[in-house]
């Protein structure tokens, strides 16, 4: 896929601005109707998905070149994919892919965002995006009696991901995840210092080659380990294994599950006993990479074909990614299974959830925008009357926690793992 391959999609945009709103059918109030953090914060049309689509066409037609504003527009986007769901609700256009391809092209053209350079350096030298040392990657697991996949066989490989591995404040919850699995009798192993980045975040920044490299490394490791299932508690890593690797032709027969999916399975199999009451009203934030971006990837090759004279269809039918099959209900099922917990929903949920703000390299390059986006979600969470905002991704938790700390708010932010831990 290259930008030019999306030209027909660009020519089929009608500039209706639906990409700026949650799907219109779902709008039921004034306050929480917008869906795109970028256009909501920066306002010029170019910041919307439709605006970036026009930018793509403008680039193809050599109408514009790279400027500082160009790069700001391109990278002040959380790559949350909400625009894609709203646009595709009513059209057959690959809207979000245009932003991704514009980023890839910018990188190929040497238009690198300086704020992203330390992350790339860290990745290339230390195999992580958190500027940590590779030798320290397994420190989060010190003292845990858990197998290392490079030394022992196991049925389940638990992939921690860069954020959990190097964000010490989050270590208690990832350690809890491993302990919960072990308590349920799961034969689980980790990779410790030998774990690598999944490549998802730098791919979103436009570095396609890095994704390929890490996909190959990670899949080779899984193959050698002979595991049946990979479980991760990071939504970004989940999307990398579940969606991005197959998308670039690097598939695996290993089952890919998010921790919420695995916990749900264990609860249903009655291997986890949730006995303790957790009396709390909570609201659930759908992480973008687990929800709409976590839809399973179905390989497709085909071509456009005209029917009814001028209507275009795809032959064979294209398995559209319209947000329909993301992981939405399972995390909610886990929450509902916890005694005492009362789940209250926000206005923008599931396929049209508002992003936490951390994605697409925004938390690294534009931290004030990341925080603005998080605060918008925190306001929405507070409007439900919930005591805690629950998520299922360390990036969301980090960004919400920082935003709450900066704003002096009191809303609790928790991962589902913490709730489950309290209930056992």
């Amino acid at each position: 896929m290259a930008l030019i391959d999306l030209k027909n999609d660009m020519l089929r945009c009608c500039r209706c601005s639906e990409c700026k709103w949650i799907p219109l059918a779902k709008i039921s109030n004034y306050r929480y109707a917008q869906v795109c953090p970028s256009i909501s914060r920066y306002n010029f049309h170019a910041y919307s998905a439709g605006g970036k689509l026009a930018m793509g066409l403008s680039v193809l037609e050599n109408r514009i070149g790279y400027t500082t504003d160009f790069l700001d527009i391109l990278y002040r986007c959380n790559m949350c994919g909400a625009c894609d769901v709203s646009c595709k609700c009513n059209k057959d256009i690959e809207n979000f892919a245009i932003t991704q391809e514009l980023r890839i092209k910018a990188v190929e053209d040497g238009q690198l965002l300086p704020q992203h350079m330390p992350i790339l350096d860290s990745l290339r030298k230390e195999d992580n995006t958190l500027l940590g040392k590779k030798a320290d990657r397994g420190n989060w697991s010190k003292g845990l009696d858990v197998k290392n996949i490079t030394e022992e066989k196991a049925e389940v490989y638990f992939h921690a991901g860069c954020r959990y591995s190097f964000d010490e404040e989050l270590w208690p919850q990832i350690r809890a995840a491993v302990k919960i699995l072990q308590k349920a009798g799961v034969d689980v192993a980790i990779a410790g210092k030998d774990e690598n980045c999944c490549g998802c975040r730098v791919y979103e920044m436009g570095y396609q080659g890095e994704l390929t490299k890490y996909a190959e490394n990670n899949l080779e490791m899984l193959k050698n380990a002979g595991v049946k299932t990979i479980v991760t508690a990071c939504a970004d890593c989940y999307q990398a294994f579940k969606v991005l690797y197959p998308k670039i032709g690097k598939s695996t027969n290993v089952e890919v599950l998010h921790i919420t999916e695995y916990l749900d399975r264990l609860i249903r199999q009655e291997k986890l006993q949730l006995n303790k009451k957790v009396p709390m009203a909570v609201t659930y934030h759908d992480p973008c990479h687990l929800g709409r971006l976590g839809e399973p990837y179905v390989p497709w090759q085909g071509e456009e074909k005209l029917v009814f004279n001028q209507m275009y269809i795809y032959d064979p039918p294209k398995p559209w990614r319209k947000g329909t099959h993301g992981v939405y209900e399972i995390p909610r099922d886990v929450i509902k299974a916890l005694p005492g917990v009362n789940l209250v929903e926000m206005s923008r949920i599931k396929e049209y959830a508002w992003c936490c703000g951390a994605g697409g390299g925004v938390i690294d390059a534009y931290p004030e925008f990341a925080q603005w986006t998080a605060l918008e979600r925190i306001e929405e969470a507070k409007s439900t009357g919930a005591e805690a905002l629950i998520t299922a991704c360390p990036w969301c938790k980090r960004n919400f926690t920082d935003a709450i700390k900066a704003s002096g708010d009191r809303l609790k932010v928790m991962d589902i793992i913490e709730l489950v831990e309290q209930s056992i």
Partner: protein
Amino acid sequence: MELAQDFYRAFEDVVGSENISVDPAIVDGYAFQPMGGARRGVRFFKRPIAVILPGTTKEVQSVVKLCGRFKLKVRAMGTGYGIYNIVGSEDTVQLDLRRMNRIIDIDEKNMIAIVEPYVSFIQVMGEAMKKGLACNVLGAGSQCSMLASYTSLHGNNVMAASQGYSGRNLLGVEWVLPTGEIIQLGAPGSGAGWFTGDGPGPSLRGIMRGAGGAQSGLGVFTKCAAHLHPWPGPAELEVKGVSPYYEAEVPPNFEYHICEFPTWQQYADAMAKMGAAGIVFSMQKTGGPGSVGNCVTGNNNEFYEKRVKGELAVPWKSFAIVMAGYTKEEHDWQVKTFNAILEETGGKIAPVGEDPMFKNSDFLCMTKACFIPRQPFRASGTFGVDGMVGIDTADHMAIGLEADADLYTKHTPSGVMVNDGDLNSWSTVYEGSHYALFECGYAISAINQENLKTYQKMTDEGNDLCYTTPFANNLFHMGELTLKRFGPKCMDYPKWMYKIKKTFDPNTVADPLVYPTGD
């Protein structure tokens, strides 16, 4: 053309550095206008000299005054959907009113909403429904700006039979004239609230928007009050499903049907009678433009597969109707009246609309106007109007639709339009009267330039037909060439427009692209 540095700084002083740009990556986005451009084979038009995002009426006023002083022009936009948002010349400042996005008030008792320019219909609808009210939504979809439609365009819509067109729902208005003066029309002009556009206080409704709206050719509207209507349904319509498969069950005391007729005249008679009987919440010819089958499916492949199996076929001479009653008694009366009108006019309920999936999807769209871009755009990327547009009586609508059906049939073999077997023209009646509109548009390729040329020939033929017959001689035409052609057929109304333009905009500060000076 570049904006002089001192001009830039003057504008920047008004709106702040975050809210002005001359960067090509920003301004080119405002030159991109496929809705109207695609059918001409064009995507990019002239670039504005700068884009400015004012946040208040005062800032709008300051920017307009500076444009006058710097001999620049100005064009304002709401949500920016449609070719009338492009600038006519490169010395034009584009005002994007996106930051002016507040619902100032929803006055339940007086059934009024007061809004700023970047409030969409669907936001007002969501809040109004909670108070047992609904707003009149432009046919272009509920994502559009309510203020832009009400103040500056004609605004046909599916609720027209009960609620009229956009301009008929306009009450008080705040207006920044091209001279920079701020005036308030109607009751707010005398500090009496926003409940009417016609006084106490100055009433310039005919001047500020006329029939078709000035389309930003007479300054900038910064606030307006809109009439809200009764909504007998739930405070929040329960919408089930995951995108793109959203549905809403028809609530108790509501009805949704597709009605079909043997002749266009019977079709038109039924529309007028149902409107007059006061039983309509929303009503429109099925299609318009683009198939209803698009509306009730999730993608083109799905629509195609169902359509070739014979599903989703909608009769040509048919309309969809939603009736909404507060009580069982009202509902029973509406159904009885509906059945009596069908009997009188030889109509019957078409089975296609009774399928639960079809009914629940199209009912949702007929209520929230939420699937509009699916209908005309998804199939082929764009649509074109074949020139056959008229606003007159219901009888006139019947003749127009029949003529359009002939034109469509004649040109179908060329393969230029999407032909799914349906006739995707559009029509409605207004406010329970015989006043009616027909509009004949078809899905055409957004990409194939040869097809667009062929379609242009069909459009020219439709335009000629309208010109040589009374079909489309009305007061809604805008733009210099069209005004020159149709004006003499319509009491020379452009002469009055030119006088108004000169009086209210003596230095032509408001971009004259669609509201010309006549010079």
